[in-house]
């Protein structure tokens, strides 16, 4: 794979999980966007017809949210809030403008990523619950009309919040070069770790490409 001494950042199972969520999420967001903004009904055409988009959306949504819950479990230990996370947050301006010497050292995930993680967890739980409440014809008939109206509203708010965080996620992943390769193939270089997640190198369970069996 690499002749260089590379560090394992994402295990194979997690990588498959992540890209599965991306694929299901793409279908979910495009079809959902079609209902939220009827003028953009053509985005839902990814499912074929508007009727098919309506049928596919809740299923694709579940296929997005359930693996996301698996990722919640798998990445939980990396996302605990730590003491110097606040100092990193206060130095967010230096992070964004790449004033490297002023950025506090962080581990596997920086506090920005931890906020993102929490947002994805909260919104996907809310989207699943409200989505089931409004799911015609299977579950909606069991709920009061007024409850469904609130479910539709909360579903839309959570979807917008999630989309904004997806955009931020995409923006940061493509900006910090090497991240996308890390999520695709699992490995990042030692220098990449030193620059972006220095404390990751102190992890006693650190794996390199020389160790993992293929």
């Amino acid at each position, binding site marked *: 794979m690499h002749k260089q001494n590379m560090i394992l950042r994402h295990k194979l199972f997690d990588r498959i999980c992540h890209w599965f969520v991306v694929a299901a999420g793409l279908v979910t967001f495009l079809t959902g966007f079609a209902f939220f903004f*009827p003028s953009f009904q053509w985005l839902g055409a990814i499912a074929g017809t508007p009727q098919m988009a309506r049928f596919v959306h809740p299923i694709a949504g579940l296929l997005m949210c359930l693996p996301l819950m698996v990722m919640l479990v798998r990445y939980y230990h990396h996302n605990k809030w730590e003491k110097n996370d606040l100092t990193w947050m206060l130095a967010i301006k230096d992070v964004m403008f790449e004033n490297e010497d002023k950025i506090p050292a962080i581990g596997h995930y920086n506090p920005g990523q931890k906020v993102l993680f929490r947002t994805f967890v909260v919104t996907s739980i809310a989207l699943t619950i409200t989505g089931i409440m409004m799911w015609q014809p299977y579950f909606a008939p069991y709920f009061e009309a007024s409850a469904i109206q609130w479910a*539709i509203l909360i579903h839309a708010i959570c979807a917008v919040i999630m989309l904004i965080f997806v955009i931020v996620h995409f923006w940061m992943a493509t900006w910090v070069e090497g991240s996308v390769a890390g999520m695709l193939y699992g490995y990042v270089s030692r220098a990449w770790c030193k620059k972006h997640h220095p404390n990751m190198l102190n992890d006693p369970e650190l794996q390199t490409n020389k160790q993992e069996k293929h």
Partner: protein
Amino acid sequence: MSAQDIILSSGTSELTPAAQVRRKLSKVAKLFDATKCNGCKACQVSCSEWNDLRAPVGSFQGSYQNPMDLSSECWTLMKYQEVERDNKLNWRFAHSACMHCDDPACLTACSTKGAIVQHANGVVDFDSDKCTGCGYCVSACPFDVPRLDPIDQKAYKCTMCSDRIQVGQEPACVKSCITGALKYGTREDMLFIADLRIKELRKRGYVNAGLYNPEGVGGTGMIMILHDINKPQDYGLPADPKTSVPVKLWQDVVKPLGAAGIMATVAVACLHRITVGRNLVEEDEPAAFDHTHEDKSDKE
């Protein structure tokens, strides 16, 4: 009806309104006079006949009302509301069908462009070919009228026999009404007739008689004369129907704010990318395939 007659269409906003030139056409209305109704169900049967609807035969539920509720195959239902007055059973017959609101909540909530329309004559109609079966109209309607069909997953309701009124006939229910409890005409005429009738009823002792034409939905295309206007619940009607708060928040606040938020995030991301530039790592351990040492990126 022609496309020029559609004055309101679901899935559009004020920025791109439906055809407005025939907006001044006079609106029509169905007038139901509950004080004249004897519950014969002719309206219910003629609706089913004209519209070729055959709801499955139900079972006896202890009421003369049958079926017990509106459905995708029952667009007009004679409701036998049972009320107790002076220890006596009273029936409050209610001709139950779409109210054809001036400001229809179903149309506001609809997720699909053109699946719900309002014609220049005020009739609110569903386009089944466009309906996706999301059920937003079902939960949004303050009168609990639209129903999803269990087989084709499309929403259905009374069309006010738009195919009949298009060629100058009255709706099938009005045509078959034997007591004159149902009338049809321009909204102006119906309001005038209703006014005379209510004055007469009050003279005869029904001091609370009044017209049910709720303001909250901008008035309706089916107006009703009730024995007691202070108790619309007796007829199974909501006291103050209107487009609900969550539907309004969703359409008028979340959608524009959401669009602004999404676009602002994309704009900030692009600006940041252009101003700050690439975030590259200087590799201290060049890859074996890297012969030139020019490529300092960590791209694999």
